[in-house]
């Protein structure tokens, strides 16, 4: 049983002062599937992402990833454990080039330390070349190869979101958390984003998606979980969710 789930949220709770942002949330994310987390604005979706990736510490409950408990682990440790993520407000390194952004993503797959980097770069040539090749491969995968040497900040938003995903993919994660990847994208870009996420799943990477674009969610998700006021109110296949009365009520703001 356990081996089917890559991620397990166990009675997760998060309070800010007196405000309960996430309440008693238990959820399983299947391996190799696309699971979507939906809910009205302010339902606590991004908070859940931050709890999973170590940017916030749960008030109670815990997260289990690939059979391992992620308690009190700092974000960079969780990345090393195999969880990649993107951010709701795109967080690319705008001063660096597109290629360099992805090369940063290869951080965990390379080892050079500060001494060798500064004093003995010839010894690192091989590793640098490997980093660069892997990054270029990601760029081709996303069709951003032509922009490789532009400052990342100069890309249009759609490409920036793609770049952010490419950067997280460069980690070679087992699970990818995407926080509203289609927000701010036009219809054409949204379709491209959907195709990209499908492709990622085909590479046997599990995806947890937060998204407001319902067409996209219903089209690509295997499972959907609905959150409202920090609570799980429904879960199931897209078809089940679309027929669920509670969900419709939550969205209509009853």
């Amino acid at each position, binding site marked *: 049983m356990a081996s089917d789930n890559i991620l397990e949220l166990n009675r997760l709770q998060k309070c800010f002062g007196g405000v309960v942002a996430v309440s008693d949330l238990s959820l399983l994310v299947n391996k190799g599937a696309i699971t979507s987390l939906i809910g009205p604005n302010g339902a606590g979706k991004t908070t859940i992402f931050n709890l999973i990736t170590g940017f916030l510490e749960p008030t109670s409950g815990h997260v289990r990833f690939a059979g391992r408990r992620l308690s009190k682990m700092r974000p960079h440790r969780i990345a090393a454990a195999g969880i990649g993520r993107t951010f709701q407000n795109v967080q690319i390194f705008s001063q660096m080039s597109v290629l360099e952004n992805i090369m940063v993503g290869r*951080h*965990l797959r390379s080892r050079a330390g*500060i001494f060798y980097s500064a004093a003995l770069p010839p010894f690192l040539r091989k590793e640098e070349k490997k980093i660069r090749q892997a990054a270029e491969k990601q760029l081709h995968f996303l069709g951003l190869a032509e922009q490789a040497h532009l400052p990342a900040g100069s890309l249009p938003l759609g490409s920036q979101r793609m770049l*952010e995903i490419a950067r997280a993919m460069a980690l070679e994660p087992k699970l990818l958390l995407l926080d509203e990847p289609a927000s701010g994208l036009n219809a054409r870009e949204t379709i491209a984003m959907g195709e990209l996420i499908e492709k990622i799943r085909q590479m046997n990477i599990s995806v947890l998606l937060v998204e407001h674009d319902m067409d996209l969610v219903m089209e690509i998700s295997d499972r959907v979980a609905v959150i409202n006021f920090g609570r799980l109110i429904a879960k199931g296949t897209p078809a089940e969710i679309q027929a669920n009365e509670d969900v419709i009520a939550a969205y209509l703001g009853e």
Partner: protein
Amino acid sequence: MKGRNSAGFLALIVAIIVTPSLVTNDYYLGTLIFAAFNCLACVGLCLLMGYAGQISIGHGAFVAIGAYTSGILTAKLAWSPWLAMVCAVLIVIVIAFCLGIPALRLKGHYLAMATLGFASIVHIVSVAAIDLTGGPAGIVGIPRLDLFGYALNSEKQYFYFSWSIVAIGVYLAFNLINSRVGRGLRAIHGSEDAAASLGISITAYKVQVFILSAVFASVSGSLYAHYVNYIDPGPFDVSHSVLLVTMVAVGGLHNIWGAFIGAVALSLLPEILSFLSDYLLVVGIHYQPDYDTLVYGGILLIIMLFLPEGIFAGISNSVGAVASSVRKLAGKKDDGLG
């Protein structure tokens, strides 16, 4: 290093080689030697401030610790200067580590104040710990450095030596920023959250670059001590730390060459001003060296208000703009012909 930076580096080497034959006056050569000390400290500080985005108004303290360690060990205990310099670096590494771990968790204003407070404490200790530092009287009789048995006695020799160290420092800095670690640092500057989400340990990286920049400062302090042969707390008060930040900011935070140019320009400024003072007297302004502080402040403020990327970026941007408009004009001509 590649492209434009290696061209710049080559220019630096050439400049180091030819300068002593152009500047024959020992006094001016001495000024340029002092500029080398500031340059080294500023290149290190630039890695911390410009690339990793962490401010320190306390690097004068590391210069002081380097200078005092070298001074005490060589003048009082007759150690070899080289051994003393290595020892100074080790001490600075330990201190920077102990300070960096708690301090670099702070951000912005808090970090600035913490480092400023540290610099102030080090200055107070250098004045008060008379047994160790000689107090206000300082330490005399610090020997000159020797290189493979040759004492670096003349100004020219010390010029070559200290600027070679600067060149090595610049070389190391450029290697670093274009490496895995350098990309990590720049990533931290861009977005700490994103960097952490890619597996970069923010604290470890900040502390490492803090230590590295402190080592640059320490070596610059040791070189200073062995050049002037005596040290007292005077040059190492808080305003020295502020001066280093000023140099980096005036030249340009986000580029090693910027910090380099800022350090050289502001180190030479007192000489330039005293040179200009003769002309100012003609127009009725009686310029005195006491006004220098005011001029420093004024330059820093004007740069920060109107050219926040610093002189270097200002120059290279305007050169770039001219070049691209020339290219555009040329392009239009081609179109017209075609």
